């Protein structure tokens, strides 16, 4: 099975049998079968609105299995094969020997062994080996993120907060610009005060913290409005599918053809 998958040719020039398979799966029959199945599943999943029922749970578990199977073959094609297996056994690559082929790179054995330690967690008693792998990978990655979070997130955002007043004021004496600058400056500072836990929120500090809360509330209001927009868009997307791709294309058009034809 491993070799069969490797025999697959590149997309630009599919093997004849692959081209016919592709035509079959994107052909009309499979599309309309797919539309009917998709419509059925959509209605099953919508049934969750009334109450959690067996069909919905079946759909959920089916979707979990499909996603896991899809991911496993995806990992094999995109990750394990080109980055690991071909580096270790380059002659497995159908294009071996040509410039596009893979070349032997024994260095890849080290991460390979470390990665294998993770799989050993499934074996009772050998799980502790995976700690070395986590230490190597998460330790190294944490070192990178410690510096990058500073240069990519903390400093630019911090610099932009100090830069707020001139950024607004230098672009001409304009009341709205000055107001915006003040809102940005006071808002950001007051939110920092709100999340400051070493001082009791009383008196002046309490007042600034309240401004902070209200700034946060307006920000959450924006998230509230936008999240509603998102959920509604998802619903419209599915209704478009049900109404146009399914009812219109599969039912009305087919009936129209029968009537006109008959």
């Amino acid at each position, binding site marked *: 099975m491993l070799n069969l998958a490797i025999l697959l040719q590149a997309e630009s020039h599919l093997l004849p049998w692959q081209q016919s398979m592709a035509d079959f799966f*994107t052909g009309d029959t499979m599309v309309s079968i797919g539309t009917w199945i998709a419509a059925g599943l959509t209605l099953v999943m919508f049934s969750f609105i009334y109450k959690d029922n067996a069909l919905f749970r079946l759909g959920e578990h089916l979707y979990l299995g499909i996603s896991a199977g899809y991911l496993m073959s995806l990992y094999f094609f995109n990750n394990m094969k080109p980055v690991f297996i071909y580096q270790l056994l380059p002659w497995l690559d159908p294009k071996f020997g040509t410039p596009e082929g893979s070349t032997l790179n024994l260095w890849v054995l080290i991460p390979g062994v470390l990665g294998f330690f993770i799989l050993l967690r499934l074996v009772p008693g050998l799980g502790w080996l995976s700690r070395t792998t986590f230490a190597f990978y998460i330790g190294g990655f944490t070192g*990178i*993120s410690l510096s990058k979070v500073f240069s990519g997130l903390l400093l630019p955002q911090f610099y932009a907060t100090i830069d707020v007043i001139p950024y607004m004021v230098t672009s001409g004496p304009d009341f709205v610009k000055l107001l915006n600058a003040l809102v940005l400056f006071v808002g950001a500072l007051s939110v920092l005060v709100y999340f400051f836990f070493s001082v009791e929120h009383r008196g002046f500090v309490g007042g600034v913290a309240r401004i902070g809360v209200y700034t946060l509330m307006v920000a959450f209001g924006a*998230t509230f409005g936008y999240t509603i927009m998102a959920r509604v868009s998802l619903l419209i997307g599915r209704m478009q599918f049900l109404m146009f791709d399914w009812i219109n294309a599969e039912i009305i058009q087919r009936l129209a053809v029968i009537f006109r034809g008959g």
Partner: protein
Amino acid sequence: MENEAKRNFLELFLLLDRRIIYTLVALAVAIPLIWPIGLPIRITPEVQSVFDKIENLPEGSNIMMSADFDPASQPELYPMMKAVMRHIARKKHKLAITVLWPNGPNLVAQCIEEVKEEYPNWRSGDDFVFLGYQVGGTIVIIGVGNSFVETFPKDYYGNATSTMPVIKNFNRLGQADYMIMFEAGNSGDWWIVYGTEVHDVEVGGGVTAVVAPQYYPYLQAKQLNGIIGGLKGAAEYEMLMEHPDMAVAAMDSQSMVHALLFVAIVLANIFAFALAIQKRNAARREK
């Protein structure tokens, strides 16, 4: 004192049965789809700046694209990605596409098939390279910053990337003239922190409406040059492209449902408030 029969209108509204609410929403979506109203769509500056950037880039410049979403946000980000991909194919820019979320690659592959139908001579290997999905999230971003060929020896279709003409002068994120990323979560922050800030690449964010507000601090700090927010952003982009498609068709329904929910929240709060006062007066009268 109030008996069950004489329950006033306020309580009735607040205890509206769920099924009525659901049918109201379903109607508010379906009717405008069948009889579109055609409300004008106004272009916001955040979307305009992304469009202008891609429009004004000289032909054949390098654009990096990352599609980090899965079918859960397909209704929002798929039309957006298709509109931007259409724009890139029309302007004949060189395009490199990566996917960071595991369930996403086939959405991009389908989108490429559909754009290819409109632009037949837009070919993988010459005009674009679909690098596909690689496990690792941030590690892939760092890898793409170093070299496409080493992080993605084979592209999504299984071709070797090292001999592709498009890779010759576009093998690192640093060589991109612009980047557009489609985000459904905070992987956009990773692209900014580990990718575009490090290699000094201008980037635009096509994001789901759920996370759009979280990208505005990056916009003000000039770490982002524009934001295409939710299906409304996708509709604006389609209008700018003069190629109305799925997103524009959905805008009327979007408006109707929003209007319905606006009225519902306002009335519900007013009635609840009125009801509370009524109860307090009734309670005070009893004492």
